[in-house]
Each structure stands twice: as C-alpha cells, then as structure tokens.
C-alpha cells in the first residue's frame, strides 16, 4: 500500500543570497539551487573536461606551470578561463562547471568543500562549518 508522502510546499526564495549563482535551471525551479541540466552541461563541457584532467598529477603540474595555456589547450571560453584564473568559484558554476568537477581544482588549492560552501553563501569557512554543525542550513 502506498501513502502520499507529505512534502513541504515550495520554499520562498532565500533572502539576501549574496552570490549570483543562477537561481533557476532547466525545467526545475528551486530557489538558490543551480540545476546541472543538459544546457548547463553543454556550456560547461570543456571546462569540466579540463577539471577532470586534474585526476592525474602530470596534468596538475602542467596546469600549475601555466594555467592560461592549459585552459587554452582545453579550448575554454574566455570567461571560463578568467573564472579559473581568478578562482571565481561561483562563476565557474554559472559557466557550466559541475560542483564535482570544480571541487577538483579546489582540492589542488587545498580548499575544502566547506570553504566552497562559504564562498557560495557569503560566509567564511568557519561560519559555514558552524552552520553545518548546528544542523545544516534550511531554506
């Protein structure tokens, strides 16, 4: 027997979100939530390919030796290259980066997923971690 699962009505947009990650995506609309859909994945394909290449130490070294040249080799769009050079994590997501791929660059920089969470939400890593330890953020 199946019973209906009670789920909350759509949440109102989170107030005061300081970052510009796209609020909606594809066919879905969940405020504050980038949806990695087909169009996003098309936009980010070359960026994500480059980020995946960081699985290998040799590629990480080549990237570090000349980041712009490495981006050019993967034919990134100029704004994608700029986002990578600037470590503009929000822009990387906006430009089609998948968080699982973007995280590989963060790891190279010694950054944690909590650091990225702070960036996406306008907090320090410590503040973000404190919110997680307090039971996570709602919205």
């Amino acid at each position, binding site marked *: 027997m199946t019973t209906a699962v009670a789920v909350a009505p759509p949440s109102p947009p989170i107030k005061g979100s300081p970052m510009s990650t796209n609020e909606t995506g*594809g066919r879905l609309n969940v405020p*504050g939530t980038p949806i990695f859909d087909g169009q996003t994945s098309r936009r980010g394909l070359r960026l994500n390919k480059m980020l995946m290449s960081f699985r290998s130490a040799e590629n990480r070294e080549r990237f570090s030796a000349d980041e712009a040249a490495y981006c050019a080799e993967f034919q990134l769009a100029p704004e994608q290259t700029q986002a990578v050079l600037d470590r503009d994590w929000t822009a990387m*997501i906006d430009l089609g980066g998948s968080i699982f791929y973007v995280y590989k660059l963060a790891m190279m920089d010694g950054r944690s997923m909590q650091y990225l969470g702070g960036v996406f939400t306008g907090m320090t890593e410590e503040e973000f971690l404190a919110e997680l330890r307090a039971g*996570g953020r709602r919205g």
Partner: protein
Amino acid sequence: MAGVAEVIWGLATSHVPSIGAAMDRGKTEDPNWKDLFDGYAPARQWLAQHEPDVAIVVYNDHANGLDLDIVPTFGIGTADHYRVADEGYGPRQVPDVIGDPDLSLHLLESLVDENFDLTVFQELEVDHGLTVPLSVWTPDPGDAWPCPVVPILVNVIQYPQPTAARCYALGQALGRAIRSYGEDVTVGILGTGGMSHQLAGARAGFINPEFDAMWLEKIHTDPAALAALSREELIREAGSEGIELIMWLIMRGAMADEVTKVHSHYFLPASNTAAGIALFDNRAPQPA
C-alpha cells in the same frame, strides 16, 4: 543441481568521501566523527555474521570513472576487476574490486529483456561512490573485500536523472533477475548516496533532517510512497545532491515487500552532508 540466488540483506548508506578519508586517516575516534562510526558498529557486527557470496553496489560516479561526454542513465559493470580510481590525490589505499561477470551478464540480459536500457561497462574505475560503502560495511578488508561486486551505475548528476519511480521499478526487476539466476548464491545489495545535502548555490549547506527522518522510515515501510516523489520535490526537500537518494530505491526494490530493519543511524554533518545508514534483513518471515 541448479540453485536459486537470494538477496539476504540490503544496506543503504551515504558514500561521502570524507567518511572514507576519516577511516583512511584513523580519525574515527575524533569527536567530530565518533558518533557516526559508533552508529555503524551494530550494522557492521550483523553484516560480519551474514557474509554474502556476492554484492551488488548501486552508486554514482563523481567525475572519476566517467566523463560528461557520455552520460548513461543506468549502467552495469561486466568486468572481472575494477581498479580503484585516482580521484586526484592518489587512489584510496583499499583493495581493488573483484567483479562477477557471470552474474553481471545474467542481470544485464534479464534487465534488458524487462525493458531497462542499460549501458554495459566492460572497463570501469570505481570511485568513492562505490568504495566508501564497502568501507562502511567492512572497515578492515585486509587484502580483499569480503566478496565479488557487481557495480550498477545511476546518473544522479545531470538532469534528467531517472525518476524515483523508474529507480524503484529497476530495483524490482533487479530482484526478479537475481531470483532467476540459476546459481545457489547469497546476495547483499547496497544502495548508496545521500542523505540531504546541497553543495553549490546560495542554498549550499542545506540539510533537511525532517525529510531524512521521513525517508529513513518509509524506505523501510513504504518505499512506493518515496518512489512517487518528483525530481523537483526531491531537489527541493533533499537538496540538489540529495536527489541521489533515489539509488536507495533500487536497493529497496530488489528486496521483499516486508523486510526487517536490523539497524539504522543518522548523523550530521559528514562533510556537507547528512549521513544515514539503514540495514535490512531480507529473510524476514512474510505475513501470512
């Protein structure tokens, strides 16, 4: 003598990489982690006494074994060996995964005949999505995991993911496929991922303990209700990465309608994630 294969248990568990890292770095007694690993202990003890002949692990890859140029909705590995992927900081120091190609091909043929359009992986490197659940089950594998593994891959990263209903239906067909395997083997099945979490966007850090509690209850008692949730409901309630909970439904679908809960535990945060574990005995007496 032809035998009958039987699912003896199902284990739902998060596959957060930091759980593996905490084990690999000996931090399981650290105050930030101790409650999680204490919560695993009863499940691990029961599992050590109920070792199956083969395990099926339902998981997703995270930019390690697959690239985004080819995104299969559902995949199955048919190899005899799966190397542990280097995710960018050296492979985890855990054993490689031994496959069971005969069972893989039986499942593939049965599922394709039941109109599931699987993608066959003859070569596959497995990442934390598969190895962390094996570690949750078996913290000290020594030279080898307890048994061979059949990996089943699910696209949970790129919209459109399979619906929850499709995942549950795949699980039910998987259960039929297992029961039609003419070998006398016992099977453990792992559904991995979740629980609620979101990694990117203004809502990063989102966790929803009320939803998770509901999910932990209904995955036991009423999985069909969970299978009715839409992608949008799942992403809104469980977060953009929490949608991977649909993989638990594949595990659950392969089990009997009535199962006995051996143990469950809920913990947060594991990295940015609410971590859950739920272990079910599939050999419960059926209601008369």
